């Protein structure tokens, strides 16, 4: 019985790990090419990968080919070249499009439930598994000779 519980927990863990792993589709191309400064290019890729394309809501603006995404990439690029911080760029976007534009919402009091939900679920699931397992272990086994 303990083995079953262990397997279930392991399956949960693997699911969570897969969900966290970064899927990397080919990025959309712009006429500008890469940023000259490699450090800026890295920041550019990270920021555009974390901004939602609001036209095709499950794609990031890094991956999307729609015109709005390309306009927003240009915006990010210009702000980076102007020396703006990552925070300033994210604030610029959320001021205009709302929190939904960010794939991972910042950890704030109002987002605690979002960030905490997986752990609450895991805890609840664990309690349920524990209780069920304990109850079953008290029952006689079906295949035991009577």
């Amino acid at each position, binding site marked *: 019985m303990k083995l079953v519980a262990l397997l279930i927990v392991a399956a949960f863990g693997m699911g969570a790990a897969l969900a966290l792993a970064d899927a990397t589709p080919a990025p959309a191309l712009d006429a500008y090419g890469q940023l000259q400064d490699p450090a800026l290019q890295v920041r550019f890729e990270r920021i555009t990968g974390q901004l939602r394309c*609001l*036209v095709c*809501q499950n794609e990031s603006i890094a991956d999307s080919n729609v*015109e*709005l995404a390309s*306009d*927003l990439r240009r*915006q990010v690029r210009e702000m980076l070249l102007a020396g703006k911080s990552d925070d300033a760029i994210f604030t610029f976007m*959320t*001021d*205009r*499009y*709302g*929190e*939904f534009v960010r794939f991972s919402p910042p950890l704030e009091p109002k987002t605690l439930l979002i960030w905490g939900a997986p752990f609450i679920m895991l805890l609840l699931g664990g309690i349920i598994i524990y209780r069920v397992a304990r109850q079953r272990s008290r029952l006689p086994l079906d295949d035991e000779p009577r």
Partner: protein
Amino acid sequence: MWKFLLPCAVFIALAVLFAFGLNPNRDIHALPSPLIGKPAPLFTLGDVLEPNRLVSNADLKGQVYVLNVWGTWCVACRQEHEALLAIAQQRVVPIIGLDYMDERGKAQQWLQQLGNPYAAVAFDTDGRTAIDWGVYGAPETFLVDGNGRVLFKFISPMTAEVWQREFVPRIDAARRGGA
């Protein structure tokens, strides 16, 4: 006892969730605008019909106006055009157009063929004004009060019903409030 109450509670919680989530009248892609209650972003752009004439919403300070974002590529904009013409006929508030991701020639043709409901149509050449307004599609229609604050945003084609239900009461309230 809790074995009976718990499933009931879960059922009620799910029912409330589904009543909200599966409501067919809710547009799941429509997002609340963070601009509501905030100062409307200012723009000064060339007019679609007369490129040398500038259209600026700074000139509209003191009056309630509507900003309608559209483009000739947008099928739903064609769909709402009749309604916009009818609303413009009533002369309640000026409708300012923001032509977005478009070609000037096509836009001029559109207005000549279908009629022009706009007091002025700004031509957003590079999409920057649209970004400032948090536009992510078309049509989108904003209502701005006399103090230059965004009162309301409607995402979807405008209809006479939507105008009566969502816009008219807000315009009346804004005018009563002296804005």
